[in-house]
């Protein structure tokens, strides 16, 4: 019952934001567009005519054939703006960036939560500065440097003493070099790109099947901007071109894990675990993110053809998702990262207004957790493994098959609809595993643009299978003036089952406001 109420409430909120904004767009249009005009009436004006008939002598109405009759609308070009943009293409050095102010209001916090998440509150008041520098040199070589930093005043405003050090370190402020690479041709058919970079592969918007090069920022699931979602890594990429076939050879020289919710944060998916381990005399240790010194390797064959693209991907990497490993000599757990091998294929095909897409793959050597009661029994037995390499683990190594099918439809005016179904199957499944043998999810994205593309509305909904919850986001972006984008939105997390994936974050629903100025 509670789930139903929650669902209805969330649906109403989403619908209100998305569709009221749509109405606003329509109202703006309505000022100048008479939607009451019956389109069939318009059609009828022309059904029986050709030139020289019904609409006057020539079929072109009162204007007659002489009539351009353009309204007297004088437009004076803004010369200063044109001058500003005048020399950009000739410049070998360019720099810019953006300033963004974000406010998040967590409206679902209530007394049932523990402090500091016990009442509705402004949970984000973040100022972000992003700067980039591009420099072109020699013939067709370039280097790029992107720096990004933010400070979130919400923690000071709410009282820093309410938060763990991990939360403050992870969420209150950050300054880092994002992209920093040099790129150029070695031969006509061979190019190199070396440095911190993003390598984005695959077809899916929601699943990481062949898109294995970069870890993800998952500290605030569903709220991270697309441009920040992939975390750049230090890598060397060689691209070999054979006509429409491209072969990419990638070596990654640094290990960076997914950024996940810090211990004690509102997106801490392991929030209950330390208390459980304490009863066994153990602890939940810091995530192990160092010591992964071996390079990671990826190869992609990518070919375009008329109406579609295909690719084959092989990867030998560390898993960016951690697994929980028992610590030698104690009942403690340590989040660690395991080496895995991946192989996969992607494809897409255009048919009219449809774009069909698919992605399949297998990940070998994933570490999957035992059921929590079995894990508890092992940890509570007092017989601990002597090293991380011991066989007596609280996890099992398995291969996983993954797949995605989806489609984009853009046949409606100014509207694009994207739907995806993702699934994964654990091979040689054992009942001792915590995860289900088959799991997956469904996602839907509806994007609408209006007012000559100055206003964009997006509704995104992802549902995890087996009642593991939903994440729904609706937002509207408006380009108020050149380079200034205002955003209003809402995100809602839905889960009723206590063991659902989304359950630990179900009260993190948030209203979002932001202003971004690019320069």
């Amino acid at each position, binding site marked *: 019952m509670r789930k139903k109420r929650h669902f209805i409430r969330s649906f109403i909120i989403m619908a209100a934001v998305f569709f009221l904004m749509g109405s606003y767009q329509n109202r703006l249009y309505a000022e100048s567009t008479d939607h009451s005009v019956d389109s069939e009436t318009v059609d009828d004006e022309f059904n029986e005519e050709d030139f020289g008939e019904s609409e006057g002598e020539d079929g072109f109405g009162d204007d007659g054939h002489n009539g351009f009759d353009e309204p007297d609308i004088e437009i004076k070009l803004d010369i200063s703006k044109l001058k500003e943009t005048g020399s950009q293409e000739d410049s070998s050095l360019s720099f810019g960036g953006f300033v963004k102010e974000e406010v998040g209001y967590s409206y679902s916090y209530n007394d049932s939560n523990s402090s500091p998440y016990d009442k509705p509150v402004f949970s984000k008041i973040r100022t972000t500065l992003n700067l980039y520098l591009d420099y072109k040199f020699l013939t067709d070589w370039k280097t790029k440097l992107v720096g990004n930093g933010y400070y979130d005043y919400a923690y000071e405003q709410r009282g820093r003493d309410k938060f763990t050090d991990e939360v403050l370190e992870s969420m209150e402020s950050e300054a880092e070099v994002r992209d920093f690479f040099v790129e150029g041709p070695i031969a006509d058919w061979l190019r190199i790109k070396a440095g911190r970079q993003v390598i*984005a592969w695959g077809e899916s918007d929601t699943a990481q099947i062949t898109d294995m090069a970069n870890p993800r920022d998952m500290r605030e699931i569903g709220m991270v901007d697309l441009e920040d979602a992939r975390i750049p890594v230090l890598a060397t990429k060689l691209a070999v071109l054979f006509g429409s076939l491209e072969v990419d050879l990638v070596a990654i020289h640094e290990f960076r894990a997914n950024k996940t919710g810090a211990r004690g944060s509102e997106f801490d998916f392991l929030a209950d675990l330390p208390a459980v381990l304490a009863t066994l005399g153990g602890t939940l240790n810091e995530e192990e993110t160092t010591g992964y010194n071996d390079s990671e390797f990826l190869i992609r064959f990518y070919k375009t053809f008329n109406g579609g693209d295909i690719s084959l991907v092989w990867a030998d990497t560390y898993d960016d998702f951690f697994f929980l490993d028992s610590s030698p000599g104690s009942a403690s757990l340590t989040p660690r990262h395991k080496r895995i091998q991946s192989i996969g294929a992607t494809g897409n095909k255009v048919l009219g207004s449809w774009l069909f897409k698919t992605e399949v793959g297998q990940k070998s050597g994933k570490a999957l957790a035992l059921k929590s009661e079995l894990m508890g029994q092992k940890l509570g037995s007092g017989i601990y493994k002597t090293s991380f390499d011991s066989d007596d683990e609280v996890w099992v190594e398995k291969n996983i098959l993954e797949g995605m099918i989806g489609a984009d439809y853009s046949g409606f005016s100014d509207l694009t609809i994207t739907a995806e179904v993702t699934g994964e199957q654990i091979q040689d499944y054992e009942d001792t595993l915590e995860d289900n043998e088959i799991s997956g999810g469904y996602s839907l994205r509806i994007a609408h643009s209006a007012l000559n593309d100055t206003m964009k509305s997006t509704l995104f909904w992802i549902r995890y299978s087996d009642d593991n919850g939903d994440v729904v986001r609706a937002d509207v972006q408006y380009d108020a003036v050149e380079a200034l984008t205002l955003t209003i939105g809402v995100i809602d997390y839905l889960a009723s089952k206590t063991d659902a994936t989304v359950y630990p974050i179900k009260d993190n629903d948030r209203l979002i406001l932001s202003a971004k100025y690019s320069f």
Partner: protein
Amino acid sequence: MKLNRHITIIQLVAGILIISSLFYSSLIAAELSAREIMEKSENVEDGETMISSMKMILIDRKKNQRVRVLKSFRKDYGEDKKSISFFLSPADVRNTASMAFDWDDPDKEDDNWLYLPALRKVKRISAGNKKDSFMGSDFSYADMNRREISEYDYKILKKSAMVAGHDCWVIGSMAKKEFKKKTIKETGYLKSIGWIRKDNFVAVKSKIWVKKGKKIKYFKASDIVKIQGIWTAKKIEMKTTKRKRLEHATILLFDNIVYNKGVDDQMFTTQRMERGL
């Protein structure tokens, strides 16, 4: 800015030429039939390759202006065309790139890709709704595509009219009855009138009736010069009006146009889209 169905500015230039050719051009030879004139107009010279820069000025009802700057490359492969465009500004769309392969064979789907720097990812995109605005401008995607000449009736409404000192024909165009539904669905346009210069067959202005909202579009081309033997309009504008009041306008300023200069085949790859200019 809507970028999910992208067509390069090269196609825009070609599209403007097609607008002119479809409706109005090649009528200098009075003895030619309308059909012959239209077929001839399909072969308007536009060079084997083209490199150009464009400033797109988007103007709203309050005359607020937004400026987009693009650089584009096109290459013909027989009757097929490949083109790629890069956004240079404004800052929030800088490095966005689009690429299109326009196949002459009607049985082949045109290929379109879009590179969004925020995603750092090249995405294939479908043709979508051709009535939609091209990049938030007053030009539609349908404006860029060739229309079937055989689906329209044409009529010379006036044999001589002066526009900016140039003698023009005034030509009306309307879909034939049997194609009316189809063409209106594809283009959103009901009919049009155009003014064609007699000395070079370039459309200098036109008036287009839009079905949705009973809007009227006004097209104008000016600063028409011969570049490497090819007539080229360096300024093009389209105003969308409703009851004679401006709704939105777009002005395109072309510059640095070079025809028939070697354009490498590797310019038209998804890898190039990622790299940018």
